[in-house]
């Protein structure tokens, strides 16, 4: 298990560096940053000056190397708009996004796992179809629309929950439900599919033949095997939440990473964009690593690989 973990860690590191390089390059070829920064009315001389100032005239590989070397030491450069370092900006926003995403994932799983398991056990009954209906509804309703509906109902009409800001845990409930609600359907479908397959397998029949109660058969013998693909999807979903909660953060005025990214992109604040890209890449790498290790723990056959 330890050797497996070390190998995965090494692989994750390589992937992390590669992803950050690709992200860095993409940003450079997406347009001339100097022209974008100088503005529409700038003269060629101004553009040249900016290019010089930010070191954009040097070969991309050199820029990347320097940036990566600084990044490793925790220096991601300075924002072009905020009087702050990029690292600082990200660190102050990160807790908001992490809290939101973690709560979102927990809510998604709280909806998806029981629904998926029940749908699988009651396959082809009205319960199964109702669960499918909920799944379709969750996917079909746009994030912002669902968020606004909740604000209207629980925030304004009933006044139960605060509608914006991130001061208390109550502020996170509606945005987290918005995020989780959207992720739940796909997790539920996968749980249901896995359970349906596993429940017909021979070892489940063996578990019944041993005289085990249904609860033990389902939760101990079936779920552990059915959940393996769900774990992998969870890491992807969590990554999406961390990097893609822009809409939710905007609707609920949460000052998180997604909001920062949206701001930085619209203002061409490229040091911030680069920093966030690196962060998101690292998120995915770390999450994939965690998913791999979790799966190896769940499924002993993976450990040999």
């Amino acid at each position, binding site marked *: 298990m330890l050797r497996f973990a070390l190998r995965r860690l090494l692989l994750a590191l390589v992937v992390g560096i590669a992803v950050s390089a690709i992200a860095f390059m993409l940003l450079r070829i997406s347009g001339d940053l100097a022209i974008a920064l100088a503005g529409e009315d700038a003269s060629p001389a101004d553009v040249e000056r900016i290019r010089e100032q930010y070191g954009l005239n040097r070969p991309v590989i050199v820029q990347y190397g320097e940036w990566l070397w600084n990044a490793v030491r925790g220096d991601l450069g300075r924002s072009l708009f905020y009087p702050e370092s990029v690292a600082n900006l990200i660190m102050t926003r990160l807790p908001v996004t992490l809290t939101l995403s973690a709560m979102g994932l927990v809510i998604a799983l709280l909806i998806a796992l029981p629904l998926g398991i029940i749908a699988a056990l009651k396959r082809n009954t009205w319960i199964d179809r109702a669960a499918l209906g909920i799944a379709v509804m969750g996917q079909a309703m746009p994030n912002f629309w669902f968020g606004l509906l909740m604000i209207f109902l629980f925030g304004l009409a009933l006044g139960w929950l605060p509608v914006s800001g991130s001061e208390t845990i109550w502020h996170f409930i509606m945005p987290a439900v918005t995020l989780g609600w959207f992720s739940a359907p796909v997790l539920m479908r996968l749980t249901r599919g896995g359970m349906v397959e596993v429940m017909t*397998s*021979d*070892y489940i*029949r*063996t*578990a*019944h*033949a*041993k*005289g*085990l*109660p249904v609860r*033990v058969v389902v939760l*101990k*013998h079936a779920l*552990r*095997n059915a959940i393996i693909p769900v774990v992998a999807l969870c890491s992807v979903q969590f990554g999406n939440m961390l990097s893609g909660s822009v809409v939710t953060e905007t609707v609920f005025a949460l000052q998180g990473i997604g909001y920062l990214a949206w701001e930085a992109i619209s203002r061409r604040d490229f040091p911030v964009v680069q920093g966030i890209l690196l962060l998101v890449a690292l998120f995915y790498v770390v999450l994939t690593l965690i998913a791999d290790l979790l799966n190896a723990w*769940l*499924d*002993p*056959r993976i450990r040999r690989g």
Partner: protein
Amino acid sequence: MSAPVVNAAAADDVMAGHVAEPVLEVQHLAVQIPVADGVLHAVRDVSLSVPRGETLCVVGESGCGKSLTSLAVMGLLPGGARRTADRMTFLGEDLLSMSPGRLRELRGNRMAMIFQEPMTSLNPSWTIGDQLTEPFIRHGKGGKAQATERAVFLLERVGIAAAGRRLVQYPHELSGGLRQRVMIAMALMCGPELILADEPTTALDVTIQAEILHLLAELQREFGMGLLLVTHDLGIVARVAHRVAVMYAGEVVESGPTTAVFDDPRHPYTRGLIDCIPIPGRNKPGTPLGTIPGLVPNLVGGITGCAFRDRCAYARAGCDGAIPVQAGAHDHGWRCVLSESVADSTPTEVRA
């Protein structure tokens, strides 16, 4: 030599055998499975009984309903399958009306099952030790330590070396033969009175098939259990079974003490099966073995008369009507219009 045709009520006892105190008793079991084009009458009429401490072998070709019979006893039929019987008891307790909770108390505890597919019958995510000790602890036989002790003892007993080390291994680290030995050990964990073994060696290498079956027979004697062994290996049946029930197309067509059935098969199908066994000395090298021409009938929709008549060399006029159950000496029964020994009968023309 002729045998009296007995009335229907007595015939039940004939097929099941006169058993004073059976571990398992089944009368007129039927299993119906809804399929796309109707209802599959997979098991049509099975009566059998397993005496305490004896082995009953159920034989027959693939699809004759012998596996479903054992699954029906355990209450493990696939969803949608319908089970009916006049009587089905385990140590006198009615299995048909039993509550799910009571059935769970018996399963894995006093009656255990060994399945056909050792490769897939163990949970890939749990260790051998966990899966072995689970029923022991679940059925309140003792704590973790006692369960582990019993698991090691049984693993050694079923011929697994370094048993202690096996406990921490996962199924994928074991060969098919070892996994089936683990399944056997698992079935024995709680000291059951009845073991149902559903073709336990079909998926294994020929070289270890006989080994596993002999092991089962040995354990049956050693622990004094009732064993219902579903198999199509007649060679093994002759050596281990006290009684045999021959199944064809969902029915028991002949049953009786092993020697009686083998020495004097009364049903032409039994005779055909026995002729398929190669016996050194009887079959000269290079000469073809016996075969039974034709195919097993389709059991969707049900059948009247003898299901074997289309393949039978002795088929005659009465074969499409109600078939009597006949009784010979020593609880030997058969479901056929022929009353004399097959050997003494004259084949009619085989109908294609």
